[in-house]
């Protein structure tokens, strides 16, 4: 029963198949070629290192579909869509080959027992998944899920494919029963048709199926379903080090000047846009978007894709406008807090942040950033700190401490402690830094600081797009650090932690210098029994994972272990660990004016989340900027007296007294 052996309007089936295939392949290849040409015109980037890491990512996130399980309901269905697609695609090419070349001595895929079985079972599972997906889209669609025509087409297409296969098998089953065709047999038992009708109907379903696939094949590169082809490569070429390390490995000279149009991004930046399946997970997670701001990570990638489509297919690249003229507003770019929740959630591992930062680099190059940010950048340039105070004021927080903290510029120390700007200069935070010093001293830690020589680490400077200033700060700090003799580095601020760990090259021989957050050090000290707790606190509290400590660098356990040791019962917030919700200070936002009215600031949303926990009146943090942001939010949400914000050091200190 060769389905290709038909005669439609006097033409042999095989010829029709050839024509249809040619048409489909024509559209497919043409579009794919154009897309590849676009990628070629972008800036180069070396994403061909770390082979092992890339293969592991491919296995986990493409084959394993791991990120899809991050949201409820849709994980398993999409897993089945993926594997169903892989399997059916395989079966399709097999059948197409056989169909186009009848003389090939191979059977059709559904003439092989085990394959038939798999096709049928897969078909049922996929259909069930379709039902779940459709019900979800109609009755409980998550916010920002794009209900587009494309989505309707793909769901309909998949349904048609499964139904045509199963029904076809059903009609076939009325002619030849097979133990390998359980579903077909069930359907067959409900049919009563003549053999000729059965054969014709079977062949009809086969043709509908093949034509649907050929149509879909040609359609993929014109729709959001490009993600099927692009995302496996997107995952393969993603860097695990991004965005903790924003260095772009490229020999393009202009890379530091940022991007204002699609041609100025790297090919990997552009690949993000093609890989986007418009699921909206990034928008759902984005603190800017949730606070009512315009910024939506998905839209950023989409607008770049739009510009590519509008201007990328003509021969000459001239006359491409800056993307800020009509697609992406400068305002929305500055709304990003760089919390990386978007990247954390994205199932195709898109790298939204490097794209946003590239555009920020361009704007900074043009001097197009608000005055308050300019002022801070100038303060950092001149004084080495964002507070605009003389560098001589940096060590003032140590004045009252006895004994005097070692000067690591002159003496060898085991631990070199870099506090960061906020912990040293902000009058609200200095007492916390003093308590941290007390903890270190009481536990016999051999530590020292750089006194006036420490400069702003540059993490947020880089993330605001001032690459040149970042390099100056990094070089100056590195020079000073290399001159000192120490074994490990401690940081108070997770932002300092992030850039020192991932973006600074502190050793000449390529070995890693040990960078620890103070919570990691305190945890270690507790384990080594170097800290004695004279009173356990016996309270319930919740803990906020700072973005740059948790999501960026995976440090979740040490703070929790510390809290346990001091008798704090931890009640987790719904959004904890990798799902922790940003306080809103990152990406230079803490330097910006709160000009655009928002529904609810990210910090306020977080405070409400904490306040809603039963019997919890304390939120513990491990980042100086969190204290500042959350203490303000406690007031503006009217939670004064109901929720207190404390740093881990304060609690450990209390417990040690």
């Amino acid at each position: 029963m060769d389905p290709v052996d038909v005669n439609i309007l006097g033409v042999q089936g095989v010829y029709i198949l050839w024509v249809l295939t040619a048409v489909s392949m024509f559209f497919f290849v043409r579009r794919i070629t154009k897309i590849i040409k676009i990628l070629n015109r972008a800036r180069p980037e070396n994403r061909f290192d770390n082979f092992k890491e890339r293969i592991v990512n491919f296995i986990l996130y493409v084959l394993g579909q791991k990120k899809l399980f991050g949201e409820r309901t849709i994980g398993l269905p999409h897993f089945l869509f993926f594997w169903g697609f892989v399997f059916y695609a395989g079966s399709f090419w097999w059948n197409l080959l056989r169909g186009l070349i009848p003389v090939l001595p191979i059977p059709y895929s559904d003439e092989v027992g085990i394959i038939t079985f798999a096709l049928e079972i897969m078909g049922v599972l996929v259909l069930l998944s379709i039902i779940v997906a459709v019900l979800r889209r109609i009755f409980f669609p998550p916010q920002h899920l794009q209900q587009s025509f494309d989505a309707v087409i793909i769901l309909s297409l998949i349904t048609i494919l499964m139904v045509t296969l199963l029904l076809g098998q059903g009609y076939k089953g009325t002619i030849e029963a097979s133990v390998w065709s359980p579903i077909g047999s069930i359907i067959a038992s409900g049919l009563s048709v003549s053999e000729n009708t059965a054969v014709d109907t079977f062949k009809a379903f086969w043709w509908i199926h093949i034509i649907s696939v050929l149509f879909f094949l040609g359609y993929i590169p014109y729709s959001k379903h490009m993600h099927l082809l692009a995302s496996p490569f997107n995952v393969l070429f993603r860097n695990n080090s991004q965005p903790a390390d924003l260095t772009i490995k490229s020999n393009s000279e202009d890379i530091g000047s940022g991007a204002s149009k699609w041609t100025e991004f790297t090919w990997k930046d552009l690949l993000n846009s093609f890989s986007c399946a418009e699921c909206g997970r990034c928008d759902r997670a984005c603190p800017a978007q949730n606070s009512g701001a315009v910024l939506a990570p998905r839209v950023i990638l989409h607008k770049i894709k739009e510009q590519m489509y509008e201007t990328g297919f003509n021969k000459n690249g001239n006359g491409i406008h800056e993307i800020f003229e009509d697609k992406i507003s400068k305002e929305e770019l500055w709304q990003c807090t760089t919390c990386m929740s978007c990247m954390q959630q994205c199932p195709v591992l898109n790298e939204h942040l490097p794209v946003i930062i590239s555009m920020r680099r361009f704007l900074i190059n043009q001097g197009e950033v608000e005055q308050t940010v300019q002022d801070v950048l100038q303060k950092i340039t001149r004084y080495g700190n964002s507070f605009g105070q003389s560098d001589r004021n940096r060590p003032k927080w140590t004045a009252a401490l006895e004994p005097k903290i070692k000067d690591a510029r002159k003496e060898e120390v085991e631990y070199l402690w870099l506090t960061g700007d906020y912990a040293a200069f902000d009058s609200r935070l200095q007492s916390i830094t003093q308590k941290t010093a007390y903890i270190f001293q009481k536990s016999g830690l051999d530590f020292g600081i750089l006194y006036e020589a420490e400069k702003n680490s540059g993490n947020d400077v880089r993330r605001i797009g001032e690459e040149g200033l970042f390099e100056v700060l990094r070089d100056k700090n590195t020079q000073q650090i290399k001159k000192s003799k120490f074994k490990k580095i401690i940081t108070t601020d997770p932002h300092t932690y992030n850039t020192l760990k991932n973006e600074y090259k502190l050793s000449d021989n390529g070995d890693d210098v040990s960078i620890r957050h103070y919570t990691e050090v305190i945890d270690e000290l507790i384990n080594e029994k170097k800290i004695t707790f004279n009173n356990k606190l016996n309270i319930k509290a919740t803990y906020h994972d700072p973005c740059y400590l948790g999501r960026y660098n995976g440090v979740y356990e040490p703070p929790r272990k510390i809290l346990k040791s001091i008798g704090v019962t931890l009640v987790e917030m719904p959004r904890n660990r990798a799902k922790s919700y940003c306080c809103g200070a990152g990406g230079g936002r803490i330097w910006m004016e709160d000009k655009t009215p928002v529904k609810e600031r990210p910090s306020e949303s977080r405070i409400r989340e904490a306040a809603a926990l039963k019997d919890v009146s304390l939120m513990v943090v491990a980042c100086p900027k969190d204290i500042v942001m959350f203490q303000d939010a406690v007031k503006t949400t009217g939670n004064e007296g109901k929720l207190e914000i404390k740093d881990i050091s304060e609690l450990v200190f209390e417990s040690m007294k």
Partner: protein
Amino acid sequence: MNNSILILIEHLKDAIADISFEMLGIGRKIADSFNGSLHAVVLGKDINKFLPELGIADSIFVADDEKLEMASPETIADIIKSIIEIKGISITILGGTNTAAGVGPILSSKLKLPYLNFCKNIRVEGDNIIVTNQLFGGKILSDVKLDGMKGIISVNPGSFPSDAGKASKVVPVVEIDLSQIKIKNYFKKYIEPEAGDVDITKENVLVSVGRGIENADNLSLAEDLIGVLGGAISASRPVIDQGWLPLSRQVGKSGMTVKPKLYFALGISGAPEHVEGMKDSDCIVAINKDPAAPIFNVAHYGVCGDLLEIVPSLTEKLKAKKG
């Protein structure tokens, strides 16, 4: 040495500026300690009406000519130079204002005499005249001796009591001979400040904000406060420069001079240019994070604290008391 002192009288629009009386007062004091004479020079258009108020001087030099309205500092310097040469003046005192700006340096250059500005005190010590002037925005003071008791001094408004310079006595008037003076005038017209909604010089209560307010959003704290306290919001220069409030609200050297019953300074450091504009307020209360802020030298009451914390609570308490 002739022991005579010359004061350049300042007037803006239709009134003698207060600084003129300050200068006349200290000029009289210094002249008297040497048995010297005190002279005033008034230049401009329609200025004869000012003469009766200048009775504390021994004589007044006048040039009333419409070409002299807002005349260039070179011209004023030329006129003063001619008086100095005719009369043998030893010390010329000018106001440290934008109006008189330039006269001192140009005169100093022409006569090769020392020019000391931003002075807050002039005193006699034996045979010497010692001038105390402010450096670096008032952070440092220096005492300078006027060699040979000859020189040009410009006085920081608010340094001396203006009452000491007021007297209505009829005094000889000398017409200045302008025939040898090449009058240079580049002035075209005045640009009035935009009709501000509020005239802060007429308010009884001013809540004044400075850099410590941090950003425009926090202005609402001040607004809420005047909602219960009454009055209006004024500001120091940095706030006006940022565009958070219009020019009509500026207090200080380049802004208005105010004397309300209550001047509540929030986050204002107290730089001399600002203090000049509010030092005569009845009651000055200042909140500033910096215990060494110069504002505490001029305030009657001070709070070293965070205005962002204190002001909202103050407003709450005042609302409660009212309602």
